């Protein structure tokens, strides 16, 4: 196991077919390169064609430094592939995956409110968490949900997702044309006329509500594994 608390600016360890270099990115570039140079020179012929991993631990934003070190190493040594450490998974994520792998959602109790049918003008629907409506939402109707709002139909009317302050909620509709949208505490007026022909969703980006084509930019496509919500 690599000792991340090491005070040495650079540490080298043999891993499989190559070497793993752990470095402290807070140190000046010159010192780091000098230290790495020393260590690799000590390896002599063992370093030839060996793969190398440059690891900065949990620190972020040191891509330029790593690039500089890579260039230096390529110019001075005959190493194999020089890469960076894979992104570390956090323990809770691992646990969630283990749970989901064993179909943990079989025991999942949900506050999702799923309704079918048409929501008419003057009707207001409040959902504790996510709200799914299989049907149209007419102009003058109002939806309020603690989580996401999914409308499998035409969405007119007023929608508030992530009530009162969850800004990671989304609003999705097959025909997206609400008169007013609000996610958490951020609100926006709906488009005048037009729109509503394709499946779109609204989400918050940089404190603004952004509408995107769902098929092109689904926010859930990034999730590699189904999660119970």
């Amino acid at each position: 196991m690599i000792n991340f608390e090491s005070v040495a600016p650079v540490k080298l360890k043999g891993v499989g077919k190559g070497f793993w270099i752990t470095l402290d990115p807070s140190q000046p570039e010159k010192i780091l390169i000098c230290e790495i140079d020393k260590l690799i020179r000590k390896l002599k012929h063992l370093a030839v064609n060996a793969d190398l991993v440059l690891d900065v631990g949990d620190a972020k934003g040191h891509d330029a430094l790593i690039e500089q070190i890579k260039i230096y190493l390529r110019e001075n040594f005959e190493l194999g592939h020089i890469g960076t450490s894979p992104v570390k998974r956090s323990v809770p994520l691992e646990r969630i995956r283990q749970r989901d792998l064993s179909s943990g959602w079989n025991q999942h109790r949900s506050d999702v409110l799923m309704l079918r049918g048409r929501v008419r003008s003057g009707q207001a629907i409040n959902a504790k968490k996510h709200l799914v409506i299989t049907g149209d939402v007419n102009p003058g109707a109002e939806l309020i949900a603690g989580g996401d709002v999914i409308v499998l139909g035409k969405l007119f009317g007023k929608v508030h997702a992530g009530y009162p302050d969850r800004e990671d909620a989304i609003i999705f509709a097959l025909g997206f044309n609400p008169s007013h949208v609000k996610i958490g505490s951020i609100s926006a007026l709906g488009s005048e006329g037009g729109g509503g022909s394709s499946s779109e969703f609204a989400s918050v980006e940089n404190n603004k509500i952004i509408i995107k084509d769902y098929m092109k930019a689904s926010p859930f496509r990034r999730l590699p594994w189904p999660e119970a919500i």
Partner: protein
Amino acid sequence: MEGKIIVVTSGKGGVGKTTTTSAIGAALALEGNRVAIVDMDIGLRNLDVVMGLENRIVFNIVDVVQQKCKIEQAAIRDRRIENLFLIPASQSDNKDVLSTAGIERVAEDLRKQFDYIIMDSPAGIERGFENSIVGASEALVVCTPDVSAVRDADRVIGILYSRSLTPKLIVNRIEPGRVKRGEMLSHEDVMDVLAIELAGLVPMDDKVLISSNTGTPLVLQNDSKAGQAFKRIARRLNGEADLPFEAPTDRSSMWGKISRTFGLR
């Protein structure tokens, strides 16, 4: 067999509830039914004017509900159409004078005496509207093809559903030329939002205004497009459920002219 009480409502005012009530009532009477038309717009009566019976009013629906007179005394017989009666509204009272129990009792009596009772509901969703749907067994929602009328009709449909009434839709004042030019919603657009069973499509017709002002029944005018449309609605209500719908067409269009030349319509 007991009669049916049909309430005509819309939410929004000025969409043609009163015209629809009088025309459908007259058309049902022409079909041989005994029909009572009841004006439930207490304080703002005008069904009597539209039917040309304003000079013959002695008692009104408030008197009937308050048991000051019998239904037979308040019902004014139309002289042009047999079996057609009007029970007018009171012009001097307000909508709060009617009690729900009183209306229910009168509705029960009306059912025994008539085949059809058509109730003209006031605009809005307040007390007057509530009173007019108390005894109703069926509901007709009148809607013009404009966004605000659709919004209000949608609200009324929701309320009617909540009272276990399944309303039918009449799309009134359709102007095919303007629909074609994209200036007006089409009846398909209206039906798409309201999503209830259609009772009929009524085209815009200048003769309606003349008929209302002169108090002559629209359905007696054979050259009135709206009148004919209301007759078809009455036939559907009277049991001819399969009568096909005729979408109003723009008669000035070239295709219309060609079609008529060749006797296609």
